[in-house]
């Protein structure tokens, strides 16, 4: 039989795959994590695919797992999910532009109305709107495609394959996160166009900014996950779930970027997942010493390690919850990989 060779620059994929099956797949990816438990891998019943002549056999072979192969397969599966999500979302140009450009468009519209507003206030509002855009993209991109897979019974096929549930989750998050980053960046550009100014508070701001953005994306994608996994409804995912972002944006005054218009007031704005990350981003990206005059307080800025730790705690909670939901509900495998 023909086998892949040129692109892989090595052993044929068919043979390579067979080797993987022999060495790592007796349980490995099926139960997640890329590499199975050593006891599970100590014996592998090989079928015809592992035979040089293809003859049926009941031979039991002893083989050792190779973590590198498991990791390579896991990475390939992450890429498969991420690439497919991006391709599906980019099949319609209008849909893609709407997805990543809505927040930037809002910033351009609002910015044109804010003639008397300071540069810091405009920049803060742009970050708040940009975070809205990122959250919206995460909820839509993650939820819509996942709901489609569930409605089309694709998980029944996935469950029959040696797919790592964590690779599925990671791939979808990478794709949605990449689009969210584009939406956020476009909104910051719109903020500059409408008169806002941005600057890093210090070099130490870089990891905080990255962390705040990533945690926000993770949090909101994984908020969508249990809703989609249990409802399995593409329409709900397309129109209902993204409304969570809209509600959060409206109820917290542009995600905590304009406390004057926020129905929620006080310290809580430094603790909610959407407002904490937004206010951290503003503190580290907007050069202002007049926090209250810029419409950002009270409360004061979320300065201090406890706020970063709270963000990390949010990330851990949602990652654990997301892993459990993916493994248990989508792949029907158990509570934990």
């Amino acid at each position, binding site marked *: 039989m023909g086998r892949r060779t040129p692109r892989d620059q090595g052993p044929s994929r*068919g043979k390579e795959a067979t080797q993987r099956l022999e060495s790592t797949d*007796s349980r490995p990816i099926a139960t997640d994590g890329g590499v199975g438990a050593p006891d599970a891998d100590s014996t592998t019943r090989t079928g015809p695919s592992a035979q040089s002549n*293809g003859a049926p056999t009941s031979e039991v072979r002893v083989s050792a797992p190779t973590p590198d192969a498991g990791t390579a397969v896991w990475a390939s599966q992450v890429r498969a999910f991420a690439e497919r999500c991006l391709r599906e979302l980019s099949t319609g140009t209008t849909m893609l532009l709407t997805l990543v450009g809505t927040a930037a468009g809002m910033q351009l519209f609002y910015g044109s109305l804010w003639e008397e507003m300071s540069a810091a206030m405009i920049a803060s509002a742009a970050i708040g709107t940009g975070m809205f855009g990122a959250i919206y993209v995460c909820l839509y991109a993650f939820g819509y495609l996942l709901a489609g897979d569930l409605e089309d019974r*694709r998980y029944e096929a996935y469950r*029959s394959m040696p797919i790592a549930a964590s690779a599925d989750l990671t791939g979808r998050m990478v794709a949605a996160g990449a689009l969210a980053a584009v939406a956020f960046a476009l909104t910051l550009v719109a903020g500059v166009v409408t008169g806002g100014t941005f600057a890093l508070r210090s070099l130490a701001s870089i990891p905080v900014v990255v962390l705040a953005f990533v945690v926000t994306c993770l949090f909101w994608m994984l908020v969508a996950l249990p809703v989609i996994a249990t409802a399995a409804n593409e329409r709900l995912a397309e129109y209902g779930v993204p409304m969570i972002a809209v509600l959060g944006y409206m109820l917290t005054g542009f995600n905590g970027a304009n406390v004057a218009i926020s129905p929620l007031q006080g310290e809580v704005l430094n603790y909610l997942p959407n407002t904490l990350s937004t206010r951290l981003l503003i503190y580290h990206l907007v050069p202002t010493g007049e926090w209250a005059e810029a419409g950002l307080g009270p409360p004061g800025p979320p300065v201090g390690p406890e706020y970063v730790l709270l963000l990390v705690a949010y990330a851990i909670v949602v990652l654990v919850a997301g892993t459990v939901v993916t493994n248990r509900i989508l792949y029907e495998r158990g509570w934990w990989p």
Partner: protein
Amino acid sequence: MVAVSCIEVTNLSKSFDDGPVLSGVDLTVDEGEVLAVMGPNGVGKSVLFTCLAGSTHPSGGDVTVFGADPTDRSDTTSFLLQDALCSERLTGRENVRYFERLHPAFTDDWQRYADRLGLDALDKRVEDYSGGMTRKLELTIALAIDVPLYLLDEPTAALDLSTIQVVHQLLREKRDAGRTIVLSSHQPMDADLADRIAFVADGRVVATGTPETLFDDVPTVVETRLSNADALSELALADEVYPADGAVRAFLPDADGETAPAGVASSLPSAVSLVDRPTYTDLFTYYTRVVPTTAHDP
């Protein structure tokens, strides 16, 4: 040579919110054979396949595939589930690319299968495919995964006759290479491919065996013109009169498939004649529509 079983199903049951779909299913599949699971639409074939593939946990009973619970181990099986494999928003080639990255046992053989099946619109989106084209793409993907066991749910549905012949040939090649194939179908012509057939009706396996042994148990078949169908109704076993080959047919309630006794032909009503050799349509009809109602155990 002693046959080694790769699938063992014992007293399998599966229920959903609206009631049981499978109950008391017993089935064994030997390594290297082609087993056709046949039955009308809606009798639980697809649910049975999802249990074999590890996609669904049974409500009761046991399923082992290569000695393991298929929900615990998923590297031995390639599962073609109708209309569930490909994304409609992607092109055929993008779908192939996706599974190429996703499944560690995916091989370059997909190109050969695509060529053999006449799948020549790989750069069109699947949403623009016909049902037959979609099935060709799904078959291309499922067969390109190099594993010991293929579970193919209705692999020939929506395909034209010449493509069905190609599919049969591809599956024979797989079998000759030592792979085991379990396919479901409600098309009698797929029985031609099978080493053994399992008939499913009313959520259970009502008969299994080689085509020869199953044919041996089919009662005498008689036929007449459509306009004379009433004449058959009076004779038909279990009142089952069915269309076949441009006529209508029925089974005579003779003893366990024995050759019709001499003189039967002369005693038949006007324009009703004996059928010399039952066809797969007769076989299919007998085991899926007559056996369940008569509780006949061949």
